[in-house]
């Protein structure tokens, strides 16, 4: 919303400037308030993390080891950045998918199932079709989006025409998606070369024309030194583009405007001529289509095939990411990077310290909870501050 607050580039002579501008001091104070939450929460999380380790391990040495592992392996290892960016990619897509629905006041708990179906559809088109890359790759990606969209369409239609609550129906669709995956990957879509006791339930490999390349060579060409196997593909760039498009859509388009009206005050949407049902449908379908992108990096760039054991809980993590990122494009990217970093750090802790894996999971939980609570506290403080300002007059 900064855009509107920026003073217009041209003077508008008919306007008394004092009457329309937020005083600079107030704006700086507001901005400082926004920074307060992340900074405070990281500090508190660090303190709590130390406490957790002390309680469980009863050793200051482990605190040092954990901090060292998080620092040196999590952030500054040769491959850390590649892992963080690569693992953040699906989380960004999934977080955006949740956020689109949130903006319209809808809880899409079904991202998990939607990207699974999307990944399956993309995997199928990826190995089944043969065409030059310029046709095959876009079609494969579209198939992924279509898969997610179709899976989201069911709860969307149920909500609009039958009033079924989307939370229930999207959760149910997750179960159905699991079953469909299991059925198809062990049956119709199963790679025929997989046989015997160690047979993997997975599709055949996608054609090279549908594969998306690694970004490692690009990064290495600008001075990094990532290992070739690092899970970082050009999908990362697509994810950033998606986040930017999302932010622009929400702020700068009529669709985004109507989405926000519907999401913040549905009772005002109708008198404003906004067709609520059509908007609910569009928001949910868009959410599903974006969700469909979340699984594609694994299918088209890392595993090069759809595997049964590939579902990684992106859809549920995404809810936390959207909440943490306050449904803003930038916030979601930041939150996805944080989650990805925590993942990386916890493997570091597992590799180089005596601290059991369970403790690192507790640490992750503590950090995320702290952030949520700190944000909520700051939100309340801000609300109270705004309430005070609201009684400015009358």
């Amino acid at each position: 919303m900064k855009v509107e607050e920026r003073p217009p580039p041209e003077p508008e002579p008919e306007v008394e400037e004092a009457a329309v501008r937020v005083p600079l001091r107030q704006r700086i104070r507001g901005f400082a308030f926004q920074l307060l939450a992340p900074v405070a929460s990281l500090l508190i999380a660090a303190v709590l993390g130390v406490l957790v380790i002390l309680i469980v391990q009863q050793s200051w040495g482990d605190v040092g080891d954990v901090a060292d592992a998080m620092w040196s392996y999590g952030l500054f290892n040769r491959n850390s950045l590649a892992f963080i960016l690569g693992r953040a990619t699906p989380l960004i897509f999934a977080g955006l998918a949740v956020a689109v629905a949130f903006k319209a006041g809808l809880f899409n708990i079904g991202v998990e199932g939607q990207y699974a179906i999307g990944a399956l559809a993309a995997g199928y088109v990826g190995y089944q079709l043969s065409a030059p890359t310029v046709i095959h790759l876009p079609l494969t990606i579209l198939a992924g989006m279509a898969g997610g969209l179709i899976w989201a369409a069911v709860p969307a239609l149920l909500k609009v025409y039958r009033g079924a609550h989307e939370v229930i129906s999207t959760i149910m669709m997750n179960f159905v998606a699991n079953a469909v995956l299991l059925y198809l990957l062990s049956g119709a879509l199963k790679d025929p070369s997989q046989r015997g006791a160690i047979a993997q339930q997975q599709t055949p490999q996608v054609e090279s024309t549908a594969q998306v390349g690694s970004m490692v060579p690009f990064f290495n060409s600008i001075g990094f030194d990532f290992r070739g196997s690092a899970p970082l593909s050009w999908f990362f760039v697509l994810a950033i583009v998606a986040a930017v498009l999302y932010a622009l859509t929400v702020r700068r388009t009529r669709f985004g405007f109507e989405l926000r009206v519907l999401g913040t005050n549905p009772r005002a949407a109708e008198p404003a001529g906004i067709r609520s049902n059509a908007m609910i449908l569009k928001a949910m379908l868009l959410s599903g289509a974006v969700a469909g992108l979340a699984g594609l990096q694994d299918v088209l760039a890392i595993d090069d095939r759809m595997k049964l054991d590939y579902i990684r809980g992106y859809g549920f993590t995404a809810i936390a990411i959207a909440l943490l990122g306050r449904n803003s494009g930038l916030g979601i990217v930041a939150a996805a990077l944080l989650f990805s970093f925590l993942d990386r750090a916890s493997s570091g802790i597992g590799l180089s310290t005596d601290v059991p894996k369970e403790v690192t999971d507790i640490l992750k939980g503590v950090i995320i909870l702290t952030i949520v609570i700190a944000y909520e506290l700051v939100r309340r403080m801000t609300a109270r501050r705004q309430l005070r300002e609201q009684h400015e007059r009358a």
Partner: protein
Amino acid sequence: MTTEATEVTGGGPEEARRRSLAIECRGITRRYAGVVANDQIDLQVAEGEIHALVGENGAGKSTLMKMLYGLEQPDEGEILVRGEPQQIESPRKAIELRIGMVHQHFMLVDDFTVAENIVLGDEPSHGGRLDLDEAERRVEELARGFGTPLDPHARVEDIGVGQQQRVEILKLLYRGADILILDEPTAVLVPQEVEELFANMRQLKADGKTIIFIAHSLDEVLQVADRITVLRDGKVIGTVDAADTDTHKVAEMMVGRPVLLRRVEGKATPGEPLLQVKDLRVIVGGKELVAGLDLDVRRSEIYGLAGVEGNGQSELVEALVGLRKPDAGRVYLDDDDLTRADVRTRRHAGLAYIPEDRHARGMVLQMLVSENAVLGQHEREPFTRHGLLDLRAIRRRAVELVRDFRVKTPSVGVPGYALSGGNQQKLVLGREFASKPKLLIAAHPTRGLDIGATQFVWQELVEARDAGVAVLLISANLEEILALADRVGVIYDGRVVAQLRGSEATMSELGLYMTGASSGDPDGAGGPEAGPPADREPTA
């Protein structure tokens, strides 16, 4: 030794007088972001009096009350409660000082009973368990002899607004408050309920309670208040005895110039019917709330629909705007059948709508003032081009509205909730006028507005009418109907039971129709009265 202390120890009649003051404010100043909301306010409220606080929107009334109730702290000055200087740093402190406040928007739990709501926060308990019987007994005791009986077992969502308000007041009494602050208590009430509220207030006064209340209707203020303090631009203009003054004098103090709400004459002549409603029926929960209603509004005409609230006005408006599907009947705009059309289609066809509940249906309070300034027109050029918002055009429109409709806001880049209620209303009104409508449906457009703003809105309605707009004005305020309407219809029990020329209608006549005591033959309304009066027929 401060000056005040010297004065107090000075004793004598001065001290005696101060002792009998329930509240005294001395030089209270409160600033927000460069705006002085309260400027050196001196206010004295005697014990056992009903003290009214009046002023235009933004005069600083609510700010002052919030400081008395501990929701705000003064930047300067001091507050004395029963003669003692006090720091009222929180509502909790206010309650300790036996000061209670009823907010304009009630703070009740809808699915709790009356008794539960009243004792909430201070529940009688028995060994850790809530003693509901005891609660109900105490509530009954409190409610006894206080207005019409109140059922302590009734759920709050099932009782009327007037009763809910009484629950709020009883809640304060239950906590032992003897200084009661009522923030615009009459704004939500229909006339009968206002009468009842006033009876209750007088009774509270007889019981020795002190009441401070904020009000807009000067007639009401003069009816019930002992003294009136007028605020303007954050300053106290004066305190007068209600017995020694009249509406005109108080109004003049409020706006700083002579004001008279009077019939606004325009020069337009009504044209052919623009909105036609035929045999409209709306059934809600098995009840026919709009029961075969016929209505037409002509171009360049203000049609005033008078009626006691709850006679089908809300449902009628919703059906006309497209928020509710009628169960039978037809709605035509300009000969186009819009009965089944949705809101957007109707807006494109030239409808503008000022909803009854502006905070809830007219604005998105969390969104910016600029965004709210185009809500409903946001899809039109120049605000949207090829699906993209033109933020500068939106901003420009917002700035125009803020200027032309005198909306007080620090900026158009702040959220809607940063505006006071009256200013939110002006923004919505301005926005709807700015859509250049053919038909304007205005539901209670001046409710909650002060005299200056009311006159302004009336003027705007008349100007819209003169510019050719057909205006359907729904109002429970007869003064407003009589001041503006070219034709008046009275709605009773979901039907238009009488139709009169605005210039010929009288308050008493309308009052009779409104209560259903006298039923003008609805078919008679289709007779000479309903047809365009010959003297106003446009000359070809």
